[in-house]
């Protein structure tokens, strides 16, 4: 860490000779985050390899990756991933739309907030999994109930994030909108939503995280495909490697989709004058 600080400063210099090592360092820094899991995985691999553990219940990484490769080769993996992604994507979309609309409305109109917010907060207090039996009764055991469950999980953090952020928007900025006589919807669109965008992105990411959480719950309940089904199948047939494979894929997909939001939002947040933006190259 100490040694890379002066090297990073070189990225701003035009010198050709400095470019090569600093580029390596630029890619090397994010790789630091991979170091710990890599060491742990390698350690466990060695432990099993030396025979200190049989690795039956906790299979070594090589066996997990072999399982993933097997699933990929048979085309199963893509099918499961597609099913899960489809559910998360649809549930996330519905949850975000509903959460944003209702959050904006109850953030902006205090009457709507008084009417709506207590009910929403009461519903939020219910552990969302408690809805599962009801959703299955109402909507059946197929896709609809799963997607609704995910949407419910996504809805609350987005709703709360939008409403909470609107409530703390600087009054002085809102007054600028008032002096230009913006109507309610225009005020939301031109002042409030841009002002809450940074907080909104965070709430989307929290919502997406919950979406991934709930897709597992939904798929554990009853599904014939999906990564959650792989988990359950692995448990019932005693295949820990398959469970770990599904978990690894969840981790990768979760991280990847989260990163997508971050990357997609970045161009809209260039205006920010914040602590987080001052972090060097």
């Amino acid at each position, binding site marked *: 860490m100490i040694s890379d600080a002066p090297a990073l400063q070189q990225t701003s210099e035009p010198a050709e000779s400095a470019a090569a090592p600093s580029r390596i360092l630029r890619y090397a820094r994010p790789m630091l985050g991979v170091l710990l899991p890599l060491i742990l995985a390698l350690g466990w691999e060695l432990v099993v390899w030396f025979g200190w553990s049989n690795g039956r219940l906790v299979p070594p990484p090589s066996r997990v990756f072999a399982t993933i490769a097997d699933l990929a080769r048979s085309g199963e993996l893509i099918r499961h991933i597609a099913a899960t992604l489809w559910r998360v994507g649809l549930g996330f979309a519905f949850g975000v739309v509903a959460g944003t609309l209702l959050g904006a409305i109850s953030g902006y109109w205090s009457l709507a907030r008084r009417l709506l917010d207590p009910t929403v907060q009461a519903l939020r207090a219910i552990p969302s999994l408690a809805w599962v039996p009801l959703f299955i009764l109402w909507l059946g055991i197929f896709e609809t109930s799963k997607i609704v469950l995910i949407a419910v999980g996504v809805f609350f953090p987005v709703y709360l994030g939008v409403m909470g952020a609107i409530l703390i928007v600087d009054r002085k900025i809102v007054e600028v909108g008032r*002096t230009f*006589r913006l109507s309610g919807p225009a005020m939301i669109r031109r002042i409030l939503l841009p002002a809450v965008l940074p907080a909104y992105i965070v709430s989307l990411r929290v919502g997406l995280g919950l979406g991934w959480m709930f897709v597992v719950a939904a798929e554990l309940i009853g599904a014939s495909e999906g990564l959650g089904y792989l988990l359950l199948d692995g448990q019932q047939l005693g295949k820990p490697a398959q469970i770990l494979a599904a978990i690894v894929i969840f981790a990768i997909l979760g991280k990847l989709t989260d990163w997508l939001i971050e990357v997609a939002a970045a161009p809209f947040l260039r205006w920010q004058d914040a602590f987080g933006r001052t972090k060097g190259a």
Partner: protein
Amino acid sequence: MLALERVSKTYPNGVQALARFSAEIKQGEIVAIIGGSGCGKSTLLRAIAGLDRTSSGTVTLDSEAIASPHAKIGIIFQEPRLLPWLSVADNIGFGLADAPATERREKVARALERVGLADKAQAWPRELSGGQAQRVAIARALVPQPEVLLLDEPFSALDAFTRRDLQDHLLDLWADTRPTLILVTHDVDEAVVLADRVLVMRPRPGRLFDQIEINLGRPRDRNSPLFENFKRSVLTSLDRSLDRSVPDRDAMQGPGQAMWW
């Protein structure tokens, strides 16, 4: 003409910020409102802007009552209050959203040129200095061509050099369309440089104490003896306004004489 008639404002906590303030301000006039802290200067300005409701009394612009922000009335605050997510150009064009795109672009470009920030059109507000940001705020308020422009201590956060520069600049811009300017300030120098008329207010509750016509041609020489004279008379009036033993003018003229001049 902008007419204020017995404008009073009592806040919900019982504080009377403004008591029966009356004045008439001609189109194109520059009026400075000056007074000790808590004299209701800003409250008065916010009432004219339609941002706050008056408790009683009326604000009328060309016989149209003002109760909410009006297209013909613009305001510049103490802070620039630029929208940080819009470029400088988009900030200036903020009030022109309903205008056709080409017209908006032209007006914004002209305004940028006029405030000397043409090279900053695509900059973010965070990249501007305090003086530049306030110039953008002035441009934003002037671009919709208001008939009345309110300024709430607009230059008080700037250093002395920038302040002088912006005062001259404001007069220069004012000469283009000659809107009515109502300027709240606590800077006597600023009041005498800019205003045709200085209204002195006294606090608790905020009310009109005195008014001084500044009969000086423009541009004004800040070092001339005449300028000093006007400054002195404003200062004297300001001192008297804070002296509790000095009675109100309208009290001297008997009750109900709000429009004592």
